[in-house]
């Protein structure tokens, strides 16, 4: 029987079990469940948001039904919590075990695979059908936290080189400015460029499912694997659907994480027939334009410096009453 693990002795056993089987125990979860036999733990699994993790089944018991029992419980709990689609990272040799449970493979890598349960990718792509356009298509993926003249320059430059430019705004709520605000500022900021098709990334590009370490700004071997999975998913499933043959990026002199994401893109995407076009970052009179510098100006209430960095539409928002609580949080360093 699957039970919730919450008391200290159960947690201690779960931790030892997970670590003995070569995974690391992570303190953050919404549900942690396990299966006992007598006093022994024989299977453990957790859910954090829409991610299933720390799934371990006792090696001698892996031919039975334990994984199905665990995942049933976690999926049911996830559904109750509002997640129709759940993701799992696993080793490539376990892909088939998850496919038997109706998970579908999103991206495979020599050291890790990403699968989802619930058919979210298909549903998202189907909902994008009305946006499809024929011709030479490019893509830009941007977080825009918030939208700057640098973003504007990249979009303008890219839009001139293609028939249609799909502009994906990162949907994940892990930034200072909430998605709704970021999206609106992009929309207002590119309104006059007629061949831009604006959409969001759903859970499938630079999200906490495909590339969680992006938001932790941690450039380590795990994040390398994640960025390769993220880009493989883009190249395999997303670009062909939208018939995207060019992905545009801005040069990245500051953030090492974004820099290695860009480098990985240049290495991987051409294998799938997708060109990567790097556009030199725009500079203002006082140096490069970046959203992080814009946030620094906001932290120090330096509205005068902002003008060369953000378009009028973003500036108007930053000066509005609505932006107040967000700027307050920024100043407090939250």
């Amino acid at each position, binding site marked *: 029987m699957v039970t919730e693990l919450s008391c200290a002795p159960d947690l201690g056993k779960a931790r030892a079990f997970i670590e003995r089987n070569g995974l690391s125990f992570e303190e953050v979860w919404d549900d942690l469940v396990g299966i006992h036999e007598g006093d022994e733990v024989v299977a453990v699994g957790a859910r954090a948001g829409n991610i299933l993790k720390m799934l371990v089944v006792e090696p001698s018991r892996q031919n039975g*039904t334990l994984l*199905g*029992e665990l*995942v*049933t419980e976690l*999926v*049911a709990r996830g*559904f*109750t919590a509002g997640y*129709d689609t759940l993701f799992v990272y696993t080793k490539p040799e376990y892909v088939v075990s998850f*496919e*038997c*449970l*109706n998970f*579908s493979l999103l991206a495979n890598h020599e050291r890790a695979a990403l699968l989802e*349960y*619930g*058919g979210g990718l298909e549903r998202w792509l189907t909902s994008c059908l009305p946006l499809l356009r024929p011709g030479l298509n490019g893509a830009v993926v941007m977080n825009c936290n918030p939208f700057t003249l640098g973003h504007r320059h990249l979009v303008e430059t890219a839009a001139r080189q293609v028939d249609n430019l799909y502009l994906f705004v990162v949907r994940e709520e892990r930034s200072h400015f909430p998605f709704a605000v970021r999206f609106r500022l992009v929309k207002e900021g590119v309104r006059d460029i007629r061949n831009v098709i604006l959409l969001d990334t759903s859970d499938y590009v630079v999200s906490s499912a495909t590339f969680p370490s992006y938001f932790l700004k941690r450039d380590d071997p795990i994040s390398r694997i994640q960025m390769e999975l993220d880009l493989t998913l883009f190249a395999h499933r997303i670009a062909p659907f939208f018939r995207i043959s060019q992905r545009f990026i801005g040069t990245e002199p500051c953030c090492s994480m974004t820099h290695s994401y860009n480098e990985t893109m240049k290495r991987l995407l051409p294998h799938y027939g997708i060109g990567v076009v790097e556009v030199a970052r725009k500079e203002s009179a006082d140096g490069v334009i970046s959203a992080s510098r814009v946030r620094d100006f906001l932290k120090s209430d330096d509205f005068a410096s902002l003008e060369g960095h953000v378009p009028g539409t973003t500036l108007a928002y930053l000066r509005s009453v609505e932006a107040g609580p967000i700027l307050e949080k920024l100043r407090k360093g939250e």
Partner: protein
Amino acid sequence: MKIVKKVQAGTMQSSDLMVFVEPFDELSVEIESTVKKQFEHLIRAKLDAVLAAHGVTAGKIRVTDRGALDYAIEARLETALKRAGEE
């Protein structure tokens, strides 16, 4: 009957299915199955028959099936519908 709640029934075990039901403005039935290629039409026919028998005209129904037989499909969907209709 009217679907008023978001509910789930069934398991992921072999020969069983998971059924997810939630309120929706039209009737939508999505099927995922390890034997989809061979049996999707039969699974759909069974689901449609059970939905019709319960007079369900709106709702989002999602099933993920692992080769369940007819009576299992009927039982799981019926359980989910009864849960979904409870006030």
